[in-house]
């Protein structure tokens, strides 16, 4: 064996083509997968060992063009150019061949070795689409491999091809434009031969004609006189076509893609309307669609609640006698009681949080993989505009119901900085699964399910008001919605299973240590006799203004680490999960409201910080804390009349 047996490959392609599915299969890692475009937001690296080779695989965000208008496009283009991967695997959604080829044609201009993975062939077949691979292969002169990434089909063939072609990389065909454009390209490339930039001369020429700002800047730094020439050529093109030169080129490229598609694709239209089409018509119907949405989300709510309650009570019966056992067998010395505090914290976490989080994630991932999320965005777009953002903002919201951290990160699918910030701000008002634990486990279980629903509704109204206010304060108009509408897919059980398991693992491995340590600290504070001092220090707020027991002061402080701690620690500290013994109904509701809206948890704070800087983050934290305390106190005073 001689030489390096290392290969780099990059997965590139349009949103929702199945890149991460390929990545996960090859590397065994677990990138987020779901049926909507824009899930992958950062590049991710993984390794595959195969037939003696070490293959580095990179997963990139989905992009639609190599002309740099969005951050993702800049990241991806530079990555491909600078990393010089051995192969770019262009993952293509076969059911959207024409649109996908527009991107493929641009990749070819980068003159890097590519392999086409024609993915989702199962769906194409269902739609009656047949594709002539050999013809496509000979037109673009690059290997074409049929795949079904969700079932791992054809993926080994890609790697075999990579290994086979490693030494003799193919020269791809290059798309030819019309005569006038080719003429311009030729004139420009003549000047560009010795420019010494990492891009091929032809690519630079085309991008200059497309007025790509990044490339223009690069050329300006090297040979500014070329820009003079390209401006003049652009002018010529514009005179002939009566359109901006970038549009002329884009048009030609699309026509070429359409032409190739006509040559290789055959569609035998099926007569009967498929189930997925029917579901689509119902779920996006202008009136019925909204009822269905309420049914689906309401159904989700009720199933999470009823399953959670049942499971939580069942766990309660199992853990019932453990504390007595500990006391009689280990004793209740100082250390023994610290030990029990640690165990009790974990038990409370399992009993209180797990039962609600588990069904929540299963349903969320199901809806996501099915394709319902994009439908919600469609239905909600109009309403979202009132909050100064467009319909895609629903996606971070929905993810935020699981956890605010990925919710805030998902705000990157919003196109402008302004919208990203407003959306992220609103995500912090969304009750995440940890807060749902408090809403369900405390209010739902001991006050009534209606009150729990009321709290959710309240949160949504608050999001609406906050959105309306902040869009007024920030100003500006919402960007218009442009979104891919994925077909419904049969949800892939294995994917849902993996993703749920990942979410739970993260929950257990991150939450459990925090809970144990907090449990021990609180117990130690208690045993040391400081509890009184801390509690009474906070009591003007907790007791006098909010009408809560003094102990909640310290719980709310620990709650900043993780919100479910508030309830879990309460249970652990009181030694019971029967909260109605220690809290009145209105105290439960008040506590839930404070927990919902006061400062975001540390993990969310750190993401906000990273995305928007410390000034905005600090402002959010301070305003939300003050606002939540004020609001909860006012509501408590109203509740005094109700109960």
């Amino acid at each position, binding site marked *: 064996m001689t030489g390096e047996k290392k290969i780099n490959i990059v997965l590139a392609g349009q949103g929702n083509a199945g890149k991460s599915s390929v990545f996960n299969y090859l590397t065994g890692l677990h990138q987020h997968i779901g049926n909507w475009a824009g899930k992958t937001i950062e590049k991710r690296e993984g390794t595959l060992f195969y037939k003696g080779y070490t293959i580095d695989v990179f997963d990139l965000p989905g992009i*639609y063009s190599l002309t740099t208008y969005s951050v993702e496009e800049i990241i991806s283009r530079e990555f491909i150019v600078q990393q010089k991967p051995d192969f770019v695997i262009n993952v293509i959604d076969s059911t959207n061949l024409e649109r996908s080829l527009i991107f493929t044609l641009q990749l070819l201009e980068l003159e890097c070795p590519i392999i086409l993975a024609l993915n989702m062939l199962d769906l194409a077949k269902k739609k009656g689409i047949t594709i002539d691979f050999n013809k496509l292969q000979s037109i673009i002169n690059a290997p074409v491999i049929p795949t079904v990434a969700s079932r791992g089909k054809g993926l080994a063939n890609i790697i075999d091809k990579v290994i086979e072609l490693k030494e003799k990389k193919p020269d791809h065909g290059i798309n030819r434009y019309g005569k006038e454009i080719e003429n311009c390209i030729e004139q420009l490339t003549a000047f560009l031969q010795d420019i010494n930039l990492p891009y091929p001369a032809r690519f630079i020429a085309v991008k200059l004609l497309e007025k790509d700002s990044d490339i223009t800047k690069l050329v300006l730094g090297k040979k500014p006189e070329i820009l003079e020439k390209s401006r003049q050529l652009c002018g010529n093109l514009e005179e002939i076509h009566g359109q901006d030169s970038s549009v002329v080129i884009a*048009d030609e490229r699309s026509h070429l893609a359409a032409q190739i*598609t006509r040559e290789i694709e055959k569609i035998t239209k099926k007569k009967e309307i498929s189930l997925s089409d029917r579901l689509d018509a119902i779920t*996006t119907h*202008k009136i019925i669609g909204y009822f269905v949405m309420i049914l689906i989300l309401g159904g989700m709510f009720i199933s999470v609640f009823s399953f959670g309650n049942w499971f939580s009570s069942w766990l309660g019966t199992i853990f019932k006698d453990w504390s007595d056992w500990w006391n009689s067998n280990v004793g209740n010395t100082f250390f023994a009681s610290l030990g029990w505090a640690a165990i009790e914290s974990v038990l409370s976490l399992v009993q209180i949080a797990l039962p609600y989080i588990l069904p929540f994630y299963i349903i969320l991932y199901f809806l996501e993989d099915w394709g319902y999320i994009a439908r919600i965005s469609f239905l909600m777009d109009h309403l979202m505009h009132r909050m100064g953002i467009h319909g895609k903002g629903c996606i971070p919201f929905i993810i935020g119901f699981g956890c605010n951290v990925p919710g805030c990160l998902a705000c990157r699918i919003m196109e402008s900085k302004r919208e990203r910030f407003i959306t992220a701000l609103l995500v912090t008002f969304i009750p995440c699964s940890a807060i749902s634990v408090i809403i369900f486990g405390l209010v739902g279980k001991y006050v009534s399910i209606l009150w729990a629903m009321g709290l959710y509704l309240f949160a949504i109204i608050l999001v609406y008001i906050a959105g309306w206010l902040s869009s007024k304060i920030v100003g500006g108009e919402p960007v218009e919605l442009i979104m891919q509408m994925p077909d419904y897919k049969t949800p892939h059980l294995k994917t849902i299973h993996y993703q749920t398991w990942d979410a739970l693992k993260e929950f257990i491995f991150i939450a459990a240590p925090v809970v144990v340590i907090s449990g021990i600290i609180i117990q130690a504070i208690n045993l040391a006799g400081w509890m009184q001092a801390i509690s009474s220090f906070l009591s003007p707020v907790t007791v006098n203004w909010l009408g809560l027991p003094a102990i909640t002061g310290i719980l709310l402080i620990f709650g900043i680490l993780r919100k479910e701690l508030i309830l879990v620690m309460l249970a652990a500290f009181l030694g019971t999960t029967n909260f109605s013994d220690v809290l009145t109904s209105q105290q439960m509701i008040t506590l839930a409201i404070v927990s919902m809206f006061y400062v975001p948890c540390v993990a969310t704070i750190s993401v906000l910080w990273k995305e928007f800087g410390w000034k905005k983050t600090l402002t959010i934290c301070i305003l939300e804390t003050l606002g939540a305390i004020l609001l909860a106190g006012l509501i408590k005073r109203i509740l005094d009349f109700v109960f």
Partner: protein
Amino acid sequence: MDNKQGITSLADIKDGQSGIIVSILGGRILTKRLSDLGLNSGTEVKIIGRTLFSGPIQIEVSGSRLVIGEGLASKIIVQPK
């Protein structure tokens, strides 16, 4: 000039109808973004449906589905078929 028979904006054609894009009234960036998604002059667009009030429009372009805001749709000029 613009009074060619029947030319109208995409926002104004009915559900289920289709039209061929004549031009896009927008800057370079918008036109380019639409073009990357397959919306160019000369392509056929079919309206699948929309939501109540002035909500977004669901369209089909060469076999793939897109959703675009109503304001944007009114900038896309089409010849109804």
